């Protein structure tokens, strides 16, 4: 298997989070979150209370996957930016560093142009952090390798 597990440490988590916070402020957004392409939430910031972030993460990933499938059919690699406009809130979804998905929810206090601009800058920062995270994955000395049969069994008691 080519893929291994993906590990996120405190340090990169903190870095992701501060990049998201900065993006939220700069873009006047309501909520910003970062998801991996398989639909797992990595970090979020903003008015996320009451939002089902787990479901949002999974659907955002499904959304990128589905439009990626469409892109392939017409000979494109992927549609790396999606924009959904609602009556009240809008959603800007973009791919970062081939592996992550950045979701920005905003309302009238902001605009799609501004969000797009700020997302572009934030993406570069996030991509750098991702590279560092991937390196720490490689050298993971890991909790998982230490699991025993007993640990696993204990989940079902």
């Amino acid at each position, binding site marked *: *298997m*080519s*893929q*291994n*597990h*993906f*590990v*996120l*440490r*405190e340090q990169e*988590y*903190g870095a992701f989070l501060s990049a998201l916070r900065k993006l939220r402020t700069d873009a006047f957004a309501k909520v910003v979150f970062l998801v*991996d*392409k*398989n*639909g*797992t939430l*990595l970090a979020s910031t903003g008015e996320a209370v009451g939002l*089902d972030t*787990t*479901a949002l993460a*999974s*659907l955002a990933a*499904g959304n990128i*996957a*589905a439009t*990626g*499938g469409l892109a392939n059919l017409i000979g494109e690699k992927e549609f790396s930016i999606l924009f959904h406009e609602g009556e009240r809130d809008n959603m800007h979804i973009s791919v970062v560093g081939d592996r992550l998905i950045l979701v920005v929810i905003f309302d009238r206090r902001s605009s799609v142009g501004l969000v797009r601009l700020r997302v572009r800058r934030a993406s570069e920062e996030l991509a750098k952090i991702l590279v560092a995270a991937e390196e720490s994955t490689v050298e*993971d000395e*890991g*909790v*998982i*390798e*230490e*699991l025993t*049969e007993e*640990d*696993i069994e*204990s*989940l*079902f008691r």
Partner: protein
Amino acid sequence: MSFINYSSKEINCKIVYYGPGLCGKTTNLQYIYKRMNPDARGKMISLATETERTLFFDFLPLSLGEVRGFKTRFHLYTVPGQVFYDASRRLILRGVDGVVFCADSQLTRMDANVESVENLRLNLEEQGYNPDKVPLVMQYNKRDLPNIASVAELHALLNLRNVPEIEACATTGIGVFETLKATIKLILNDLRKGGR
């Protein structure tokens, strides 16, 4: 591909329920949803047609207990079983850590089962997996119906890797949690050995 978050102390894994149309994949998730303690599961999302056939996927997040101080979270997905949704099935397999193959025990569905097993192998390969290595559990569903194949027949036809197999009736829940447990064990063992 599992995801370990040292910051929130979580291990996340993805399980996909695969199998032919109407074999009972969505029913498995519905039963798990119904029976799990609400604290331990999130909302179930079903992207389905008006006739309740899965269109893209069902999604159900579960959090089980802790191991070594890490919360274990499992994201359960179903694929759409109907043959023509193959493109969607491939997308959903992306990043999978373990597969439940849900077979329909009815004699009339044997061809569909075989086709789906082959389709699973192809799509796993396409996503860069070794289809002989991915953690897999076979569930023989609909054991309550008449005119079904014997377990020996199903085994010979479908269980080519000789993986754990479980008889089930997803509507009443027989075998549903056994299937899930068997899959989670395989996944964690597989991760532990770093065998991929």
